[in-house]
């Protein structure tokens, strides 16, 4: 009697245990970390589409502002408390995480990666082993966003030469409109580095990147200094109180229609639309001294989504990553966030996105990021730290260029 009873009991317990594990296995929650606090609503929408197709997997999004993201992520990973999927910075900033062994290579597990171009994958590759560690999501270009209504009201056409650009700024200023909303205070110095990326190619041309990579040109090159000087020359047209204005404030000035232009990257498209659906704007490449059909613009791979090695939900997380690498995601991304998706083939339903895809035709890698953000001190760290002072006239452009050169010379080896 006892035997049967105890056997029944253990059987019952066994069934319960099995059911419990089965239930918990199907209740999959994948945690995803991102720094794009601006895109929260859109991303929740996109991943809701994923959960609609895969009901047993929910994607929990957690956002940390950009200035703190990198060190919060690395501290969390160090403590074994990281997410399942993390948004990863590209190129040099990816390497510490790869070297620390925190990420799983995705070459085998996400077959959709085969459909991506090498340029798109360039930012999510491990330097040491050449494996792909993240699914890239966008290859943005950078240019001049402009308020079409303000331009129309003041009779300004899209400038095709630098002189026309300056003339447009003068006209706007005379009409009492802020010509260029710009600011990089309070940890948003990267926004001014973007300015350098916007103006740069128009001065040093599309081939400059290759020259720098092969060691035939350095930052102290007069062409680069000339680009810096142009950024400084435009200072009268920047936001008032420029030194205290940060990136978020500058974007607000453009979004609220107070500023006519904004130097930015493709990611602003969706963000602008979300914050002010009535804003009428478009984008043009920064013009050089002579009119060109396709002025050169900076482009790069913005980042990727990677799989954390310590994750306890790898199977589910890999499914999410496959979704991110899919054409469906690319289309949702294009429609909801308005940046050029990393995976080509999405249709541009938005005219601004279409302009940006057109600009990609003459793209050159964003110099300071793609070329020189690999080891400390990075070119970016020097530029971001000193650029406000340069624009305000406290540091000469030559000195900034020299400082950048000195910094990267400690580790840069030309690829000949």
């Amino acid at each position, binding site marked *: 009697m006892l035997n049967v009873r105890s056997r029944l009991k253990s059987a019952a317990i066994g069934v319960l245990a099995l059911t419990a594990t089965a239930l918990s296995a199907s209740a999959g929650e994948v945690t995803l970390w991102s720094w794009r*606090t601006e895109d*929260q609503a859109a991303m929740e929408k996109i991943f809701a589409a994923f959960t609609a197709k895969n009901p047993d997997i929910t994607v929990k999004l*957690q*956002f*940390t*502002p950009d*200035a*703190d993201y990198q060190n*919060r992520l690395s*501290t*969390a990973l*160090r*403590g*074994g*408390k*990281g997410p399942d999927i993390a948004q990863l910075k590209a190129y040099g900033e990816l390497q510490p995480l790869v070297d620390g062994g925190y990420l799983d290579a995705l070459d085998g597990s996400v077959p959709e990666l085969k459909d991506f171009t090498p340029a798109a994958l360039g930012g999510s590759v491990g330097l040491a082993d050449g494996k792909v560690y993240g699914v890239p999501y966008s290859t943005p270009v950078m240019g001049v966003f402009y308020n079409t209504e303000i331009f129309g009201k003041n009779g300004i056409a899209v400038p095709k030469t630098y002189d026309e650009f300056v003339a447009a700024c003068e006209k706007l200023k005379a009409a009492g409109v802020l010509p260029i909303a710009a600011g990089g205070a309070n940890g948003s110095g990267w926004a001014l580095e973007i300015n350098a990326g916007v103006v740069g190619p128009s001065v040093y041309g599309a081939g400059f990147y290759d020259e720098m990579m092969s060691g035939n040109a350095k930052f102290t090159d007069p062409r680069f200094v000339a680009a810096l000087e142009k950024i400084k020359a435009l200072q009268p047209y920047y936001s008032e109180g420029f030194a205290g204005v*940060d990136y*978020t*404030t500058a974007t*607000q000035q453009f979004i609220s229609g107070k500023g006519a232009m904004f130097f930015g990257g493709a990611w602003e498209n969706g963000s602008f639309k979300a914050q002010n659906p009535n804003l009428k704007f478009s984008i043009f490449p920064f013009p050089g001294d002579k009119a060109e059909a396709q002025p050169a613009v900076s482009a790069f791979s913005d980042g990727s989504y990677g799989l954390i090695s310590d994750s306890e939900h790898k199977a589910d997380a890999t499914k999410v990553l496959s979704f991110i690498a899919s054409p469906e995601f690319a289309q949702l991304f294009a429609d909801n966030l308005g940046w050029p998706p990393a995976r080509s083939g999405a249709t541009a339903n938005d005219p601004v996105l279409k302009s940006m895809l057109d600009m990609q035709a003459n793209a050159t890698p964003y110099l300071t990021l793609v070329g020189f953000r690999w080891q400390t001190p990075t070119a970016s760290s020097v530029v971001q730290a000193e650029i406000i002072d340069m624009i305000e006239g406290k540091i000469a452009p030559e000195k900034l260029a020299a400082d950048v050169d000195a910094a990267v010379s400690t580790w840069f080896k030309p690829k000949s």
Partner: protein
Amino acid sequence: MTNLEVSQRIRQLPGWIVLALWTLVVAVPLYILVVSCFKTTAEIYGDKFGLPTSWTLDNFANAWTQAQFARYMWNSFAVTGGAVVLTLVVSAMAAFPLSRYQLGWSSPVLAFFLAGVMLPIRLASVELFSLMKTLDLLDSRLGLILVYSAIRIPFAVFILANFMRVLPRELEEAARLDGAKEWRILFRIILPTIKPAVAIVAIFTAIAVWNDFFFPLIFIFDDAYKTVPLAITTFIGQFRTDWGMVFAALAISMMPVLVMYLLLARQIREGVGATGGLK
């Protein structure tokens, strides 16, 4: 009033003006904080100092829904309460024999604790982080409670021992003669007699722990365990331009401290004076 009194009053005037000015410097920013909570962001831009035209509660509603303040408040309460209780209990237990017993080793041990009042624990964060990871105390409120208690114990032992030391011997002797156990003597007789000291330790510990954001910054990664100061920094980073909502979030997080201060201002004042400012 006599002429002497009048001239005395006049001489005192510049002093009052100075004091009044500083009162404004303290009060006006806080006034702006409170008042801006009830304005829309556009209204704040337009009129910084005036009273709100329509006392809108939208900012509070938005702040509350955008971030889970209820949960963050709960975490802060749990961690602060836990730290205060733990600190008080173990510190009282330690201070008692060190101040009342004749032991050869009380002085060095007390000095050992005392050194901790000024030890810069933040500089040990690297090793502390590894320790917490090994003990699996990252992302946990218990971990925070233990760390905070460890940091506050030196101050608590110092204060409690100082107050206990001067109590009359007869207090315990009588109880011992009756056969009372030591812990009973401590908690039923000694501590109630030094209530002001207990209050000082409790209040200062509570304030320090509630306001700290350094340790949550390096120990807490899961949103579910964040305390209020840490949550506020993330909140502001994300919603920086929505001034109305940011002010509302600041006001919400300030509430518990304000309430406590209104109730306990006198104890706090006297406590600071008595302890010479050791925080």
